Protein backbone atom coordinates (compact mmCIF):
# COMPACT_ATOMS: atom_id res chain seq x y z
CA UNK A 1 0.00 0.00 0.00
CA UNK A 2 2.81 2.36 0.95
CA UNK A 3 6.29 2.08 -0.47
CA UNK A 4 9.20 4.30 0.56
CA UNK A 5 12.47 3.83 -1.28
CA UNK A 6 15.74 5.31 -0.07
CA UNK A 7 14.31 8.55 1.28
CA UNK A 8 16.80 11.23 2.26
CA UNK A 9 15.97 14.54 3.86
CA UNK A 10 18.38 17.08 5.33
CA UNK A 11 17.20 20.23 7.06
CA UNK A 12 19.21 23.47 6.99
CA UNK A 13 21.74 21.96 4.61
CA UNK A 14 25.05 23.83 4.53
CA UNK A 15 24.52 25.60 7.86
CA UNK A 16 25.76 24.78 11.35
CA UNK A 17 22.22 23.60 12.11
CA UNK A 18 22.42 20.96 9.39
CA UNK A 19 20.40 17.92 10.40
CA UNK A 20 20.06 14.77 8.37
CA UNK A 21 16.60 13.73 9.50
CA UNK A 22 16.00 10.87 7.08
CA UNK A 23 18.99 8.81 6.09
CA UNK A 24 17.95 6.55 3.24
CA UNK A 25 14.89 5.10 4.91
CA UNK A 26 13.00 2.40 3.03
CA UNK A 27 9.72 0.93 4.19
CA UNK A 28 6.93 -1.08 2.62
CA UNK A 29 3.49 -1.45 4.15
CA UNK A 30 1.11 -4.16 3.03
CA UNK A 31 -2.60 -3.48 2.63
CA UNK A 32 -4.21 -3.40 6.09
CA UNK A 33 -0.94 -3.19 8.02
CA UNK A 34 -1.20 -1.34 11.33
CA UNK A 35 2.37 -0.30 12.07
CA UNK A 36 3.45 1.36 15.30
CA UNK A 37 6.56 3.54 15.13
CA UNK A 38 8.85 4.22 18.09
CA UNK A 39 12.24 5.84 18.48
CA UNK A 40 14.06 8.48 20.52
CA UNK A 41 13.79 12.19 20.00
CA UNK A 42 15.27 13.21 16.65
CA UNK A 43 15.17 9.66 15.29
CA UNK A 44 13.09 10.84 12.34
CA UNK A 45 9.64 9.51 13.23
CA UNK A 46 7.68 12.68 12.60
CA UNK A 47 9.90 13.54 9.65
CA UNK A 48 9.01 10.18 8.13
CA UNK A 49 5.28 10.90 8.44
CA UNK A 50 5.67 14.44 7.11
CA UNK A 51 7.61 13.09 4.13
CA UNK A 52 4.74 10.72 3.34
CA UNK A 53 2.16 13.50 3.81
CA UNK A 54 4.13 15.83 1.54
CA UNK A 55 4.61 18.71 3.98
CA UNK A 56 7.85 19.48 2.10
CA UNK A 57 9.61 17.75 -0.81
CA UNK A 58 12.20 15.06 0.03
CA UNK A 59 15.81 15.39 -1.17
CA UNK A 60 15.82 12.04 -2.94
CA UNK A 61 14.01 8.73 -3.06
CA UNK A 62 10.48 7.81 -4.11
CA UNK A 63 7.20 7.52 -2.24
CA UNK A 64 4.28 5.63 -3.70
CA UNK A 65 0.84 4.96 -2.31
CA UNK A 66 -1.13 2.04 -3.74
CA UNK A 67 1.19 1.97 -6.74
CA UNK A 68 0.85 5.69 -7.47
CA UNK A 69 4.06 7.70 -7.35
CA UNK A 70 3.28 10.68 -5.12
CA UNK A 71 6.85 11.93 -4.60
CA UNK A 72 6.21 15.15 -6.49
CA UNK A 73 2.59 15.65 -5.48
CA UNK A 74 1.91 18.68 -3.21
CA UNK A 75 0.45 18.16 0.25
CA UNK A 76 -3.15 19.04 -0.61
CA UNK A 77 -3.19 16.62 -3.55
CA UNK A 78 -1.75 13.74 -1.51
CA UNK A 79 -4.52 14.38 0.98
CA UNK A 80 -6.92 12.47 -1.27
CA UNK A 81 -5.10 9.25 -0.23
CA UNK A 82 -4.15 10.15 3.33
CA UNK A 83 -5.94 10.78 6.61
CA UNK A 84 -3.90 12.51 9.31
CA UNK A 85 -4.04 13.20 13.03
CA UNK A 86 -1.37 15.45 14.52
CA UNK A 87 0.33 15.63 17.91
CA UNK A 88 -0.99 19.13 18.55
CA UNK A 89 -4.77 18.97 19.11
CA UNK A 90 -5.04 22.52 17.67
CA UNK A 91 -3.60 21.45 14.33
CA UNK A 92 -6.17 19.03 12.96
CA UNK A 93 -9.34 21.11 13.24
CA UNK A 94 -10.50 24.66 12.49
CA UNK A 95 -11.26 26.20 15.88
CA UNK A 96 -13.50 29.00 14.60
CA UNK A 97 -15.72 26.64 12.61
CA UNK A 98 -18.49 24.40 13.87
CA UNK A 99 -18.10 20.68 14.54
CA UNK A 100 -20.38 19.84 11.61
CA UNK A 101 -18.53 22.28 9.32
CA UNK A 102 -15.23 20.64 10.16
CA UNK A 103 -16.71 17.23 9.36
CA UNK A 104 -18.19 18.55 6.12
CA UNK A 105 -14.75 19.83 5.08
CA UNK A 106 -13.30 16.39 5.76
CA UNK A 107 -16.14 14.67 3.88
CA UNK A 108 -14.97 16.50 0.73
CA UNK A 109 -11.31 15.46 0.99
CA UNK A 110 -10.07 14.48 -2.44
CA UNK A 111 -13.17 15.77 -4.19
CA UNK A 112 -13.52 18.95 -6.26
CA UNK A 113 -15.04 21.80 -4.24
CA UNK A 114 -17.53 23.89 -6.19
CA UNK A 115 -20.58 26.01 -5.55
CA UNK A 116 -22.70 23.24 -4.06
CA UNK A 117 -23.79 23.60 -0.45
CA UNK A 118 -20.91 23.24 2.00
CA UNK A 119 -23.04 20.98 4.19
CA UNK A 120 -26.40 19.29 3.58
CA UNK A 121 -29.22 18.20 5.89
CA UNK A 122 -28.57 14.51 5.23
CA UNK A 123 -24.93 14.98 6.15
CA UNK A 124 -25.91 16.46 9.51
CA UNK A 125 -27.90 13.31 10.30
CA UNK A 126 -25.00 11.11 9.26
CA UNK A 127 -22.51 13.07 11.39
CA UNK A 128 -24.72 12.77 14.43
CA UNK A 129 -24.59 8.98 14.09
CA UNK A 130 -20.85 8.93 13.48
CA UNK A 131 -20.08 11.13 16.48
CA UNK A 132 -21.84 8.62 18.71
CA UNK A 133 -18.98 6.17 18.07
CA UNK A 134 -16.64 8.52 19.90
CA UNK A 135 -18.79 8.38 23.02
CA UNK A 136 -17.94 11.96 23.99
CA UNK A 137 -21.39 13.54 23.77
CA UNK A 138 -20.42 15.51 20.67
CA UNK A 139 -23.46 14.24 18.74
CA UNK A 140 -25.59 16.83 20.55
CA UNK A 141 -23.20 19.70 19.88
CA UNK A 142 -23.00 19.68 16.08
CA UNK A 143 -23.12 23.46 15.77
CA UNK A 144 -20.68 24.19 18.60
CA UNK A 145 -17.40 25.84 17.59
CA UNK A 146 -14.52 23.35 17.73
CA UNK A 147 -12.50 25.88 19.74
CA UNK A 148 -14.78 25.13 22.70
CA UNK A 149 -13.79 21.45 22.79
CA UNK A 150 -11.10 19.91 24.99
CA UNK A 151 -7.87 18.60 23.52
CA UNK A 152 -9.10 15.01 23.73
CA UNK A 153 -12.39 15.85 22.05
CA UNK A 154 -10.55 17.67 19.29
CA UNK A 155 -8.21 14.71 18.72
CA UNK A 156 -11.15 12.29 18.59
CA UNK A 157 -12.92 14.58 16.12
CA UNK A 158 -9.78 14.84 13.99
CA UNK A 159 -9.58 11.04 13.98
CA UNK A 160 -13.16 10.82 12.78
CA UNK A 161 -12.44 13.44 10.11
CA UNK A 162 -9.36 11.54 8.94
CA UNK A 163 -11.44 8.42 8.38
CA UNK A 164 -14.62 10.07 7.07
CA UNK A 165 -13.50 9.49 3.50
CA UNK A 166 -11.79 6.11 3.78
CA UNK A 167 -8.08 6.90 3.34
CA UNK A 168 -5.64 4.52 1.67
CA UNK A 169 -3.29 5.42 4.49
CA UNK A 170 -3.83 6.76 8.01
CA UNK A 171 -0.99 8.73 9.60
CA UNK A 172 -1.08 9.22 13.37
CA UNK A 173 1.70 11.44 14.69
CA UNK A 174 1.78 10.85 18.47
CA UNK A 175 -1.85 11.83 18.49
CA UNK A 176 -2.34 10.96 22.16
CA UNK A 177 0.90 12.48 23.50
CA UNK A 178 -0.65 15.82 24.48
CA UNK A 179 -3.57 14.25 26.34
CA UNK A 180 -3.99 13.14 29.94
CA UNK A 181 -3.69 9.33 30.41
CA UNK A 182 -7.41 8.70 30.71
CA UNK A 183 -8.30 10.71 27.59
CA UNK A 184 -5.33 9.25 25.75
CA UNK A 185 -6.65 5.75 26.44
CA UNK A 186 -10.08 6.74 25.16
CA UNK A 187 -8.70 8.24 21.94
CA UNK A 188 -6.49 5.21 21.43
CA UNK A 189 -9.51 3.01 21.92
CA UNK A 190 -11.44 4.96 19.28
CA UNK A 191 -8.41 4.68 17.00
CA UNK A 192 -8.36 0.90 17.35
CA UNK A 193 -12.12 0.75 16.65
CA UNK A 194 -11.94 2.84 13.50
CA UNK A 195 -8.82 1.14 12.13
CA UNK A 196 -10.39 -2.30 12.66
CA UNK A 197 -13.76 -1.28 11.23
CA UNK A 198 -12.34 0.12 7.98
CA UNK A 199 -9.27 -2.14 7.85
CA UNK A 200 -7.11 0.96 7.42
CA UNK A 201 -3.44 0.80 6.56
CA UNK A 202 -1.97 2.80 9.42
CA UNK A 203 1.30 4.30 10.60
CA UNK A 204 1.13 5.32 14.25
CA UNK A 205 3.95 7.07 16.06
CA UNK A 206 3.94 6.70 19.81
CA UNK A 207 6.26 7.54 22.67
CA UNK A 208 4.76 4.79 24.75
CA UNK A 209 6.42 1.38 24.29
CA UNK A 210 3.52 -0.47 25.84
CA UNK A 211 1.08 1.15 23.39
CA UNK A 212 3.44 0.32 20.55
CA UNK A 213 3.43 -3.33 21.56
CA UNK A 214 -0.28 -3.53 22.37
CA UNK A 215 -1.49 -2.06 19.10
CA UNK A 216 -0.97 -3.03 15.48
CA UNK A 217 0.42 -6.07 13.73
CA UNK A 218 3.89 -4.68 13.17
CA UNK A 219 6.34 -2.48 15.03
CA UNK A 220 9.26 -0.49 13.70
CA UNK A 221 11.86 1.41 15.66
CA UNK A 222 13.68 4.30 14.07
CA UNK A 223 17.22 5.32 14.80
CA UNK A 224 19.19 8.11 13.10
CA UNK A 225 16.83 8.47 10.18
CA UNK A 226 16.49 4.78 9.37
CA UNK A 227 14.39 1.81 10.38
CA UNK A 228 16.54 0.02 13.00
CA UNK A 229 14.11 -2.66 14.16
CA UNK A 230 11.19 -4.19 12.30
CA UNK A 231 9.08 -6.81 14.10
CA UNK A 232 5.81 -8.35 12.93
CA UNK A 233 3.50 -11.36 13.22
CA UNK A 234 3.87 -13.75 16.16
CA UNK A 235 7.15 -12.18 17.22
CA UNK A 236 5.42 -8.81 17.60
CA UNK A 237 2.54 -10.34 19.56
CA UNK A 238 4.86 -11.89 22.14
CA UNK A 239 7.16 -8.89 22.41
CA UNK A 240 8.02 -7.45 25.84
CA UNK A 241 9.46 -4.04 26.66
CA UNK A 242 12.73 -5.69 27.77
CA UNK A 243 13.10 -7.54 24.47
CA UNK A 244 12.37 -4.37 22.60
CA UNK A 245 15.13 -2.53 24.46
CA UNK A 246 17.68 -5.23 23.73
CA UNK A 247 16.65 -5.28 20.07
CA UNK A 248 17.24 -1.56 20.00
CA UNK A 249 20.69 -1.85 21.59
CA UNK A 250 21.72 -4.44 19.00
CA UNK A 251 20.45 -2.34 16.12
CA UNK A 252 21.98 0.92 17.24
CA UNK A 253 25.26 -0.72 18.24
CA UNK A 254 25.17 0.78 21.72
CA UNK A 255 23.65 -0.24 24.99
CA UNK A 256 22.62 3.21 26.11
CA UNK A 257 18.96 2.25 25.93
CA UNK A 258 17.75 5.77 25.50
CA UNK A 259 15.96 6.93 28.62
CA UNK A 260 13.71 9.15 26.62
CA UNK A 261 12.52 6.10 24.75
CA UNK A 262 11.41 4.46 27.96
CA UNK A 263 10.00 7.42 29.76
CA UNK A 264 7.90 8.98 27.00
Amino acid at each position, binding site marked *: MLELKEIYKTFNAGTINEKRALNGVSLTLADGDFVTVIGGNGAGKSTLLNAVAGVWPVDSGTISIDGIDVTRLPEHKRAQY*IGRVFQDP*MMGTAAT*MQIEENLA*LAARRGKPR*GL*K*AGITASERKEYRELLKILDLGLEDRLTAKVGLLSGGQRQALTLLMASLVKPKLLLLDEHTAALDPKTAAKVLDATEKIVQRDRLTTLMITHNMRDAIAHGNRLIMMYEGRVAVDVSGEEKKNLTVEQLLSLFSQASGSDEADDKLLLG
Partner: protein
Amino acid sequence: MDFLLSFLNSMPGAFGQGLAWGIMAIGVYITFRILDIADLTVDGSLATGGAVAALGITMGLNPWLALLMAVIAGMLAGLVTGLLHTACGIPAILSGILTQLALYSINLRIMAIGSGASTKATLALSVDKQPLLVSSRYIREMSLRNPLLLLAVLTVVVIAVLYWFFGTELGCSLRATGANPNMARAQGINTNTAKVLGLVVSNGLVALSGGLLAQYQGSSTVDMGRGAIVIGLAAVIIGEVLLGKVFVNFALKLLSAVIGSIIYYIVLQFVLRLGLESTDLKLLSAVVVALFLTIPYWKGKYFTKTARKEAARNA
Protein backbone atom coordinates in the same frame (compact mmCIF):
# COMPACT_ATOMS: atom_id res chain seq x y z
CA MET B 1 -27.46 74.54 19.66
CA ASP B 2 -25.78 75.55 16.42
CA PHE B 3 -23.33 72.76 16.96
CA LEU B 4 -26.07 70.20 17.40
CA LEU B 5 -28.01 71.45 14.40
CA SER B 6 -25.08 71.38 12.05
CA PHE B 7 -24.14 67.95 13.37
CA LEU B 8 -27.63 66.62 12.76
CA ASN B 9 -27.61 68.30 9.40
CA SER B 10 -24.54 66.31 8.42
CA MET B 11 -26.13 62.96 9.29
CA PRO B 12 -27.47 62.06 5.82
CA GLY B 13 -24.02 62.68 4.34
CA ALA B 14 -22.41 60.53 7.01
CA PHE B 15 -24.84 57.72 6.23
CA GLY B 16 -24.16 58.03 2.49
CA GLN B 17 -20.38 57.92 2.90
CA GLY B 18 -20.67 55.23 5.55
CA LEU B 19 -22.70 52.99 3.26
CA ALA B 20 -20.44 53.50 0.25
CA TRP B 21 -17.36 52.75 2.37
CA GLY B 22 -19.27 49.94 4.06
CA ILE B 23 -18.98 47.76 0.96
CA MET B 24 -15.25 48.39 1.10
CA ALA B 25 -15.27 47.40 4.79
CA ILE B 26 -16.92 44.08 3.83
CA GLY B 27 -14.01 43.50 1.45
CA VAL B 28 -11.55 44.18 4.26
CA TYR B 29 -13.51 41.83 6.53
CA ILE B 30 -12.98 39.00 4.02
CA THR B 31 -9.20 39.33 3.99
CA PHE B 32 -8.60 40.51 7.55
CA ARG B 33 -11.04 38.32 9.44
CA ILE B 34 -11.72 35.33 7.18
CA LEU B 35 -8.35 34.84 5.49
CA ASP B 36 -6.31 36.38 8.32
CA ILE B 37 -4.35 38.58 5.88
CA ALA B 38 -3.92 42.36 6.18
CA ASP B 39 -4.27 43.27 2.50
CA LEU B 40 -2.89 46.72 1.68
CA THR B 41 -3.86 46.42 -2.00
CA VAL B 42 -7.14 48.14 -1.13
CA ASP B 43 -5.63 51.64 -1.02
CA GLY B 44 -4.87 51.21 -4.71
CA SER B 45 -7.82 49.10 -5.81
CA LEU B 46 -10.35 51.52 -4.33
CA ALA B 47 -8.94 54.30 -6.53
CA THR B 48 -8.77 51.88 -9.48
CA GLY B 49 -12.46 51.15 -9.03
CA GLY B 50 -13.18 54.87 -8.96
CA ALA B 51 -10.99 55.55 -12.00
CA VAL B 52 -12.44 52.77 -14.14
CA ALA B 53 -16.05 53.61 -13.25
CA ALA B 54 -15.50 57.33 -13.86
CA LEU B 55 -13.72 56.66 -17.14
CA GLY B 56 -16.48 54.36 -18.32
CA ILE B 57 -19.17 56.88 -17.47
CA THR B 58 -17.37 59.82 -19.12
CA MET B 59 -16.95 57.69 -22.23
CA GLY B 60 -20.71 57.21 -22.33
CA LEU B 61 -20.98 53.66 -21.00
CA ASN B 62 -24.04 52.55 -19.06
CA PRO B 63 -23.14 53.31 -15.39
CA TRP B 64 -23.94 49.74 -14.34
CA LEU B 65 -21.59 48.42 -17.00
CA ALA B 66 -18.95 50.93 -15.87
CA LEU B 67 -19.39 49.68 -12.31
CA LEU B 68 -19.01 46.07 -13.47
CA MET B 69 -15.76 46.98 -15.23
CA ALA B 70 -14.57 48.64 -12.03
CA VAL B 71 -15.25 45.41 -10.12
CA ILE B 72 -13.33 43.37 -12.69
CA ALA B 73 -10.39 45.79 -12.50
CA GLY B 74 -10.37 45.45 -8.71
CA MET B 75 -10.46 41.66 -8.99
CA LEU B 76 -7.44 41.77 -11.29
CA ALA B 77 -5.58 43.85 -8.69
CA GLY B 78 -6.45 41.22 -6.07
CA LEU B 79 -5.25 38.51 -8.43
CA VAL B 80 -1.87 40.22 -8.79
CA THR B 81 -1.44 40.53 -5.03
CA GLY B 82 -2.53 36.92 -4.59
CA LEU B 83 -0.04 35.63 -7.15
CA LEU B 84 2.79 37.74 -5.71
CA HIS B 85 2.03 36.19 -2.34
CA THR B 86 1.42 32.55 -3.30
CA ALA B 87 3.29 31.93 -6.54
CA CYS B 88 6.24 34.25 -5.80
CA GLY B 89 6.41 33.66 -2.04
CA ILE B 90 6.36 37.36 -1.08
CA PRO B 91 4.85 38.08 2.37
CA ALA B 92 1.19 39.09 2.09
CA ILE B 93 1.65 42.61 3.48
CA LEU B 94 4.51 43.37 1.10
CA SER B 95 2.60 41.89 -1.85
CA GLY B 96 -0.25 44.28 -1.12
CA ILE B 97 2.08 47.26 -0.82
CA LEU B 98 3.73 46.42 -4.16
CA THR B 99 0.39 46.17 -5.98
CA GLN B 100 -0.86 49.32 -4.30
CA LEU B 101 2.22 51.25 -5.38
CA ALA B 102 2.00 49.97 -8.94
CA LEU B 103 -1.70 50.86 -9.08
CA TYR B 104 -0.89 54.51 -8.33
CA SER B 105 0.86 54.79 -11.70
CA ILE B 106 -1.77 52.70 -13.42
CA ASN B 107 -4.66 54.76 -12.02
CA LEU B 108 -3.08 57.99 -13.36
CA ARG B 109 -2.90 56.34 -16.77
CA ILE B 110 -6.44 54.97 -16.63
CA MET B 111 -7.94 58.38 -15.91
CA ALA B 112 -6.04 59.89 -18.86
CA ILE B 113 -7.40 57.44 -21.40
CA GLY B 114 -9.08 59.31 -24.27
CA SER B 115 -8.15 62.75 -22.91
CA GLY B 116 -4.99 63.34 -24.91
CA ALA B 117 -2.91 63.79 -21.76
CA SER B 118 -0.63 60.96 -20.70
CA THR B 119 -1.58 61.01 -17.00
CA LYS B 120 -4.45 62.58 -15.09
CA ALA B 121 -4.96 62.84 -11.33
CA THR B 122 -8.70 63.57 -11.26
CA LEU B 123 -11.69 62.77 -13.39
CA ALA B 124 -14.77 64.88 -12.70
CA LEU B 125 -18.30 63.54 -13.01
CA SER B 126 -21.41 65.63 -13.07
CA VAL B 127 -24.88 64.44 -12.27
CA ASP B 128 -26.24 67.07 -14.69
CA LYS B 129 -24.41 65.68 -17.66
CA GLN B 130 -24.04 62.01 -16.81
CA PRO B 131 -26.49 59.34 -15.67
CA LEU B 132 -24.88 58.64 -12.27
CA LEU B 133 -26.28 55.85 -10.10
CA VAL B 134 -25.67 57.71 -6.85
CA SER B 135 -24.95 61.35 -6.13
CA SER B 136 -24.52 63.20 -2.88
CA ARG B 137 -26.54 66.07 -4.32
CA TYR B 138 -29.81 64.22 -3.68
CA ILE B 139 -28.85 63.00 -0.21
CA ARG B 140 -31.60 65.05 1.46
CA GLU B 141 -34.30 64.36 -1.11
CA MET B 142 -37.28 62.19 -0.30
CA SER B 143 -37.27 60.48 -3.67
CA LEU B 144 -35.96 57.43 -5.48
CA ARG B 145 -32.97 59.52 -6.53
CA ASN B 146 -31.72 59.57 -2.95
CA PRO B 147 -28.38 57.66 -3.03
CA LEU B 148 -29.05 56.08 0.37
CA LEU B 149 -31.70 53.87 -1.19
CA LEU B 150 -29.52 52.34 -3.89
CA LEU B 151 -26.52 52.06 -1.56
CA ALA B 152 -28.63 50.21 1.00
CA VAL B 153 -30.02 47.85 -1.65
CA LEU B 154 -26.54 47.15 -3.01
CA THR B 155 -25.25 46.48 0.50
CA VAL B 156 -28.01 43.96 1.12
CA VAL B 157 -27.34 42.26 -2.23
CA VAL B 158 -23.60 42.06 -1.54
CA ILE B 159 -24.18 40.59 1.91
CA ALA B 160 -26.71 38.07 0.55
CA VAL B 161 -24.37 36.90 -2.22
CA LEU B 162 -21.43 36.57 0.20
CA TYR B 163 -23.59 34.73 2.73
CA TRP B 164 -24.47 32.21 0.05
CA PHE B 165 -20.90 31.97 -1.25
CA PHE B 166 -19.28 31.34 2.11
CA GLY B 167 -21.77 28.55 2.70
CA THR B 168 -20.71 26.68 -0.46
CA GLU B 169 -17.96 24.06 -0.59
CA LEU B 170 -15.63 26.61 -2.15
CA GLY B 171 -16.51 29.28 0.41
CA CYS B 172 -15.98 26.82 3.25
CA SER B 173 -12.53 25.99 1.90
CA LEU B 174 -11.68 29.71 2.08
CA ARG B 175 -12.81 29.89 5.68
CA ALA B 176 -10.85 26.76 6.56
CA THR B 177 -7.74 28.23 4.95
CA GLY B 178 -7.99 31.31 7.14
CA ALA B 179 -8.87 29.37 10.27
CA ASN B 180 -6.17 26.68 10.03
CA PRO B 181 -4.07 26.29 6.86
CA ASN B 182 -2.48 23.05 8.11
CA MET B 183 -5.85 21.44 8.59
CA ALA B 184 -7.07 22.83 5.27
CA ARG B 185 -4.18 21.22 3.36
CA ALA B 186 -4.61 17.94 5.24
CA GLN B 187 -8.23 17.95 4.04
CA GLY B 188 -7.12 18.44 0.44
CA ILE B 189 -7.69 22.18 0.13
CA ASN B 190 -5.26 24.12 -2.03
CA THR B 191 -4.63 26.96 0.42
CA ASN B 192 -2.82 29.05 -2.19
CA THR B 193 -5.81 29.00 -4.54
CA ALA B 194 -8.10 29.83 -1.65
CA LYS B 195 -6.01 32.85 -0.64
CA VAL B 196 -5.90 34.15 -4.21
CA LEU B 197 -9.65 33.70 -4.60
CA GLY B 198 -10.29 35.55 -1.33
CA LEU B 199 -8.08 38.45 -2.41
CA VAL B 200 -9.85 38.58 -5.79
CA VAL B 201 -13.31 38.71 -4.20
CA SER B 202 -12.22 41.24 -1.58
CA ASN B 203 -10.63 43.65 -4.03
CA GLY B 204 -13.60 43.31 -6.38
CA LEU B 205 -15.79 44.61 -3.55
CA VAL B 206 -13.32 47.37 -2.71
CA ALA B 207 -13.34 48.52 -6.34
CA LEU B 208 -17.15 48.40 -6.36
CA SER B 209 -17.06 50.71 -3.37
CA GLY B 210 -14.58 52.96 -5.21
CA GLY B 211 -16.80 53.09 -8.28
CA LEU B 212 -19.78 54.10 -6.16
CA LEU B 213 -17.76 56.66 -4.20
CA ALA B 214 -16.51 58.36 -7.37
CA GLN B 215 -20.12 58.83 -8.50
CA TYR B 216 -21.32 59.81 -5.05
CA GLN B 217 -18.75 62.57 -4.58
CA GLY B 218 -18.70 63.56 -8.25
CA SER B 219 -15.10 62.79 -9.03
CA SER B 220 -12.47 60.11 -9.10
CA THR B 221 -9.07 61.15 -7.74
CA VAL B 222 -5.82 59.26 -7.69
CA ASP B 223 -5.48 59.53 -3.92
CA MET B 224 -9.09 58.76 -2.97
CA GLY B 225 -7.89 55.43 -1.61
CA ARG B 226 -5.09 56.75 0.56
CA GLY B 227 -5.50 55.22 4.01
CA ALA B 228 -8.49 53.16 2.85
CA ILE B 229 -7.18 50.07 4.65
CA VAL B 230 -7.24 51.94 7.95
CA ILE B 231 -10.82 53.14 7.38
CA GLY B 232 -11.83 49.59 6.44
CA LEU B 233 -10.14 48.14 9.51
CA ALA B 234 -11.68 50.83 11.71
CA ALA B 235 -15.13 49.94 10.37
CA VAL B 236 -14.59 46.21 10.91
CA ILE B 237 -13.25 46.70 14.43
CA ILE B 238 -15.86 49.27 15.53
CA GLY B 239 -18.57 46.91 14.25
CA GLU B 240 -17.07 43.99 16.17
CA VAL B 241 -16.57 45.87 19.40
CA LEU B 242 -20.10 47.27 19.42
CA LEU B 243 -22.05 44.38 17.90
CA GLY B 244 -19.80 41.33 18.12
CA LYS B 245 -21.69 39.87 21.07
CA VAL B 246 -25.12 40.29 19.47
CA PHE B 247 -24.35 39.58 15.81
CA VAL B 248 -23.31 35.94 15.68
CA ASN B 249 -24.70 34.99 12.28
CA PHE B 250 -22.26 35.45 9.39
CA ALA B 251 -24.54 37.81 7.42
CA LEU B 252 -24.92 39.96 10.53
CA LYS B 253 -21.16 39.98 11.02
CA LEU B 254 -20.79 41.44 7.51
CA LEU B 255 -23.55 43.93 8.32
CA SER B 256 -21.72 44.96 11.48
CA ALA B 257 -18.74 46.04 9.31
CA VAL B 258 -21.12 48.30 7.36
CA ILE B 259 -22.63 49.68 10.55
CA GLY B 260 -19.09 50.22 11.85
CA SER B 261 -18.35 52.23 8.73
CA ILE B 262 -21.45 54.42 9.21
CA ILE B 263 -20.53 55.01 12.86
CA TYR B 264 -17.01 55.91 11.77
CA TYR B 265 -18.36 58.66 9.50
CA ILE B 266 -20.77 59.90 12.15
CA VAL B 267 -17.88 60.22 14.60
CA LEU B 268 -15.85 62.03 11.94
CA GLN B 269 -18.63 64.56 11.42
CA PHE B 270 -18.72 65.09 15.16
CA VAL B 271 -15.01 65.76 15.56
CA LEU B 272 -14.94 67.92 12.43
CA ARG B 273 -17.46 70.14 14.15
CA LEU B 274 -15.24 70.26 17.22
CA GLY B 275 -12.82 72.25 15.08
CA LEU B 276 -10.49 69.63 13.60
CA GLU B 277 -9.41 70.04 9.98
CA SER B 278 -10.39 67.35 7.50
CA THR B 279 -6.67 66.74 6.97
CA ASP B 280 -6.43 65.69 10.63
CA LEU B 281 -8.76 62.80 9.96
CA LYS B 282 -6.06 60.36 8.90
CA LEU B 283 -4.31 60.87 12.22
CA LEU B 284 -7.59 60.35 14.01
CA SER B 285 -8.35 57.17 12.05
CA ALA B 286 -4.93 55.75 12.81
CA VAL B 287 -5.35 56.50 16.51
CA VAL B 288 -8.82 54.91 16.57
CA VAL B 289 -7.62 51.70 14.89
CA ALA B 290 -4.51 51.50 17.06
CA LEU B 291 -6.63 51.93 20.21
CA PHE B 292 -9.23 49.37 19.24
CA LEU B 293 -6.55 46.81 18.36
CA THR B 294 -4.66 47.50 21.58
CA ILE B 295 -7.54 47.24 24.02
CA PRO B 296 -8.34 43.54 23.45
CA TYR B 297 -4.61 42.71 23.60
CA TRP B 298 -4.06 44.51 26.89
CA LYS B 299 -7.29 43.15 28.25
CA GLY B 300 -6.05 39.63 27.52
CA LYS B 301 -2.74 40.28 29.24
CA TYR B 302 -4.31 41.89 32.25
CA PHE B 303 -6.95 39.20 32.51
CA THR B 304 -4.42 36.36 32.46
CA LYS B 305 -2.43 38.04 35.19
CA THR B 306 -5.39 38.34 37.54
CA ALA B 307 -6.37 34.79 36.74
CA ARG B 308 -2.88 33.65 37.65
CA LYS B 309 -2.91 35.62 40.88
CA GLU B 310 -6.25 34.15 41.78
CA ALA B 311 -5.00 30.65 41.06
CA ALA B 312 -2.01 31.31 43.30
CA ARG B 313 -4.28 32.54 46.06
CA ASN B 314 -6.47 29.45 45.80
CA ALA B 315 -3.53 27.09 45.76
